[in-house]
């Protein structure tokens, strides 16, 4: 895994390009601490910091095609690179290295953007065509790897992380109030959003082609949730799911360095650990987090799993104080406001993983979206059937929705919940039926903003503009929204790759193999009780995993939120109420912020609920982002720790 950065058609004099490239790459060196390289010509500068995983010696970047027409800076892994290399060789392509990077380059040279659907991987890359002067920026199917684009002073800037833009002369960060409102209400930035004015993300499954002032956008992978042909029996479905997952893990074990697994104690990562362990000739390295707070801790399941599989397990104990201490730096890596603190322990864990010499980890991310593991899918199913059910059935189903939540147990609680669900049993916002309850809860956080407007307008537009969305059934609409919001905008990014790459660790997600997602959509809802989440996955692995893990039910990975700061960092009260800071962030409603922060610190802990926790973390992360990005304190002035290899094709260099 790596990081890329560059600029195109900059008005800056080309003699400055090497220094500019160096400074931009220095901001993201954590993503690729092994090597650094860049290409410079009069029209473009593009570079890579490399985390070497495949062909350690030969995979240097940037790479140029044999005729020097195409130049590539690439961040990612192509899991099917061997197969594609064979296909390209058969078509006459020549290879000088064993790296997947060269496969990407030759695939682009051979097929152009039509190569993208052939790729099974996690990637974001920039390829420049020296003949046409076109710059192409492409991103993987599900948004596993980031790619940001900004325009400044006539130049187009691009980078794996926005912090690279801090090093470009004159570039300034400024919050985008509309995007913040959307983010606060829906928990995550929407696919093209960054949270800042003038910075966009290349959305997942899309590419952007630029030639001078002309732009062309292409969508190579719309999110396809169409169910395929149904297996004939549950047993056949189980075997098909197993086969797809085995292949997905096997190709993600392709690496010239050792691969570990994040083993949270949940079903998904336990399946991945089991599948990886059967392919290693020494004990598999597994890693997990242990919380001091029993409410969040899954140590018992982790211990049982790792003993069962015989892995070499490392556990990192995380306290409230640890989370509070690491929060500012974790936010700096996240780059966007976060609605909970669960990403911070992942920041600490990836640091530990790297210290123990592991550069690649597999995780269970994506299983809940693919196999409908979240409560929101059951909620949606229930709400879509609501009018046709009698009260007794409604209560019975409600009781099974979120068994880990106290307010779902007990007759009085369930009676009151009936009223709540009734509120959401009709669609009030077009296309958002499944997420109305979540987004309603998120609207509280938007009150922290000075002018939130309609915070759900952007997500409403997103689904309205999506071809085919209106025809999806309610549960698949929920699935589409999960893929496009929480998964891409938080789980894969803030909590996933940004925390891993902060310490030069590459994360891989077998459940997001396109074949696995396709298979999941062909079996979801067709076997077993639809209110029994991930029924087929449990069935498929019940004979190889500890019973406790299979039967536990969904236990979302969480960490303590505002309590972390209230219990261990009273100084945050002053930080969040600092009049200078609040005066500098016009997007915030300073009056409400003061009222809210005082409430969180003064109220008894039991009075602080989910919405207050989320609002508090969003606010705290926004204040830190203001410090790092808007004020610019996140600029790293240290030089690269590795030499910068320069492929120099500038006319001034020739002179």
């Amino acid at each position, binding site marked *: 895994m790596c990081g890329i950065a560059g600029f195109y058609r900059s008005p800056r004099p080309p003699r400055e390009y090497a220094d500019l490239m160096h400074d931009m790459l220095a901001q993201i060196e954590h993503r690729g601490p092994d090597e650094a390289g860049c290409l410079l010509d009069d029209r473009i500068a593009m570079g890579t910091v490399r985390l070497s995983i495949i062909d350690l010696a030969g995979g240097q970047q940037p790479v140029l095609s044999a005729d020097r027409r195409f130049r590539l800076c690439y961040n990612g892994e192509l899991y099917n690179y061997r197969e594609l290399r064979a296909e390209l060789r058969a078509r006459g392509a020549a290879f000088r290295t064993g790296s997947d990077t060269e496969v990407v380059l030759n695939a682009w040279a051979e097929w152009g953007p039509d190569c993208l659907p052939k790729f099974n991987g996690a990637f974001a890359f920039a390829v420049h065509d020296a003949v046409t002067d076109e710059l192409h920026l492409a991103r993987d199917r599900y948004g596993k790897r980031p790619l940001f684009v900004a325009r400044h002073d006539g130049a187009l800037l691009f980078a794996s992380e926005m912090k690279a833009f801090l090093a470009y002369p004159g570039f300034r960060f400024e919050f985008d109030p509309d995007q913040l409102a959307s983010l606060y209400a829906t928990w995550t930035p929407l696919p093209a959003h960054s949270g800042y004015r003038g910075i966009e993300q290349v959305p997942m499954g899309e590419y952007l082609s630029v030639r001078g002032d002309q732009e062309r956008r292409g969508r190579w992978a719309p999110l396809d949730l169409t169910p395929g042909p149904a297996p004939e029996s549950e047993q056949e479905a189980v075997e098909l799911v197993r086969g797809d997952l085995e292949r997905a893990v096997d190709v993600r074990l392709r690496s010239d360095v050792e691969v570990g697994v994040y083993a949270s104690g949940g079903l998904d990562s336990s399946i991945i650990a089991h599948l990886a362990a059967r392919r290693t000739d020494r004990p598999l390295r597994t890693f997990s987090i242990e919380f001091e707070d029993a409410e969040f801790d899954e140590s018992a399941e982790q211990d049982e799993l790792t003993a069962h599989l015989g892995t070499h397990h490392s556990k990192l104990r995380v306290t409230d104080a640890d989370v509070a201490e690491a929060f500012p730096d974790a936010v700096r890596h996240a780059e966007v406001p976060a609605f909970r603190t669960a990403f911070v322990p992942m920041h600490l864990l990836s640091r530990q993983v790297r210290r123990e010499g592991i550069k690649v980890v597999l995780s269970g991310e994506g299983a809940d979206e693919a196999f409908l593991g979240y409560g929101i899918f059951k909620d949606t199913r229930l709400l879509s059937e609501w009018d046709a059910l009698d009260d007794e059935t409604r209560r019975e189903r409600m009781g099974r929705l979120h068994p880990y939540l106290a307010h779902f147990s007990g007759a009085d609680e369930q009676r009151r919940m009936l009223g*709540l669900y009734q509120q959401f049993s009709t669609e009030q916002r077009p296309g958002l039926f499944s997420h109305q309850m979540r987004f309603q809860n998120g609207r509280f956080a938007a009150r922290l903003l000075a002018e939130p407007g309609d915070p759900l307008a952007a997500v409403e537009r997103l689904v309205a503009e999506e071809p085919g969305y209106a025809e999806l059934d309610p549960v698949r609409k929920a699935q589409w929204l999960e893929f496009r919001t929480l998964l891409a905008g938080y789980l894969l990014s803030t909590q996933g790759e940004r925390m891993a790459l902060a310490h030069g660790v590459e994360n891989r997600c077998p459940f997001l193999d396109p074949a696995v997602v396709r298979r999941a959509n062909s079996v979801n809802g067709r076997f077993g009780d639809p209110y029994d989440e991930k029924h087929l996955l449990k069935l498929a692995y019940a004979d190889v995993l500890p019973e406790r893990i299979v039967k536990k039910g969904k236990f979302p990975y969480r960490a303590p939120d505002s309590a972390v700061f209230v219990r261990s960092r009273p100084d945050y009260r002053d930080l969040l109420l600092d009049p200078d800071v609040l005066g500098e962030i016009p997007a915030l409603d300073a009056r409400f912020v003061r*009222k*809210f922060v005082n409430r969180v610190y003064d109220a008894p802990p039991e009075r602080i609920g989910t919405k207050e926790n989320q609002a508090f973390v969003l606010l705290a992360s926004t204040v830190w982002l203001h410090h790092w990005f808007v004020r610019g304190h996140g600029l790293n002035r240290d030089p690269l720790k590795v030499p910068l290899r320069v492929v120099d094709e500038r006319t001034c260099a020739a002179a």
Partner: protein
Amino acid sequence: MKDELKDYLEEQFLFEFDAETTEDTDLFQAGILDSFGYISLMTHIEERYGVQFEEDELLGNVMVSLNGIAAFVDGARERALESR
């Protein structure tokens, strides 16, 4: 009761009744109450005023406004008196 309820709502949900958020505003639709807030409000009303929301009332979309809740509590109390 209504004034007490008003104070409770303002304190609990961090807002103030004003020209924009009136005593007739549906606090749920206005985004002031979230789902947990809705449940805790129902619980508070039932426990504080000794009344109970019946299922048909809950499913009839009780207007979650200050006036709506106050009217419900008054009505429930009257029904309780009549049934004695």
